[in-house]
């Protein structure tokens, strides 16, 4: 819980800094800064994994059933998005499925959906998929405790090979690193196809 609170406060501090312009605008609009931080982060995650030879040994005994995880993530997300269209009367089934199938890949899905369905749904896709990434990062300890270690990977959707990977390694364990990368790669790849499919329905 303490870990999540620290993460939330860093995020809120960032929002306030962005809102009131405490950071020079060049730093924010030019998102290369966060990209470089991400690169540094990935190197250190790799460093902690590579020096842990016990974990490397565990990759060999990986359960083949874990290979099903990306399919379960996508099917679960689509099922949930279908249910929400009953509650959200102003949104059609196809619209909810299109937003849901962004799977956390907010930059790409919002651009696609804005192109096919207009700026309003595109903005919803942006917010919804940022929220997916944020919820994964902020509630990681909670998700692992109540739904298990795989649920955190499922929650990260398309982001589990980059932005949410460090958090997954931290809370689900280093022995799921390969599963997380494999999952992120496949889900990431399926996002453009799914979004375009549901936009054209």
């Amino acid at each position, binding site marked *: 819980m303490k870990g999540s609170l620290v993460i939330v406060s860093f995020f809120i501090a960032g929002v306030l800094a962005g809102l009131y312009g405490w950071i020079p605008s060049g730093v924010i609009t030019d998102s290369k800064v966060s990209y470089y931080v991400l690169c540094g*982060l990935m190197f250190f995650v790799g460093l902690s994994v*590579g020096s842990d030879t016990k974990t490397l040994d565990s990759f060999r005994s990986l359960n083949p059933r874990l290979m099903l995880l990306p399919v379960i993530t996508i099917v679960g997300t689509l099922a949930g998005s279908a249910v929400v269209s009953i509650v959200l009367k102003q949104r059609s089934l196809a619209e909810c499925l299109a937003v849901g199938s962004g799977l956390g890949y907010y930059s790409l899905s919002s651009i696609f959906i804005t192109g096919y369905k207009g700026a309003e749904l595109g903005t919803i896709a942006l917010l919804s998929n940022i929220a997916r990434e944020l919820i994964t990062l902020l509630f990681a300890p909670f998700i692992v405790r109540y*739904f298990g270690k795989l649920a955190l990977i499922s*929650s990260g959707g398309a982001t589990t090979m980059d932005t949410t990977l460090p958090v997954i390694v931290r809370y689900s364990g280093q022995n799921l690193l390969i599963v997380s990368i494999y999952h992120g790669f496949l889900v990431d790849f399926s996002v453009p196809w799914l979004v375009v499919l549901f936009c054209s329905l």
Partner: protein
Amino acid sequence: MLTVVGLMLLGVLSGYLLRNRNMKWVSRVVMALIWVLLFLLGTEVGANDKIVSGLPTIGMEALLITVFALAGSLLGAWGLWVWINKGKA
């Protein structure tokens, strides 16, 4: 995307070469970088007028879709987790 994965592989290789040293400090660096990244993500959200002004109205719709989509994924992954661990007991 390839650069990010490549850097991680470079890290894995470096870590393997340094495997006999004390590497406990690495997890502290990882945590600090996660905080920096979250702060930067916050600044992007806060500085984007489109996101800030859209939050109260369509933000709720977006959040509702996210919560249901996540619930579906979490339940599925929980089922797989139970199925995988059943054989071990």
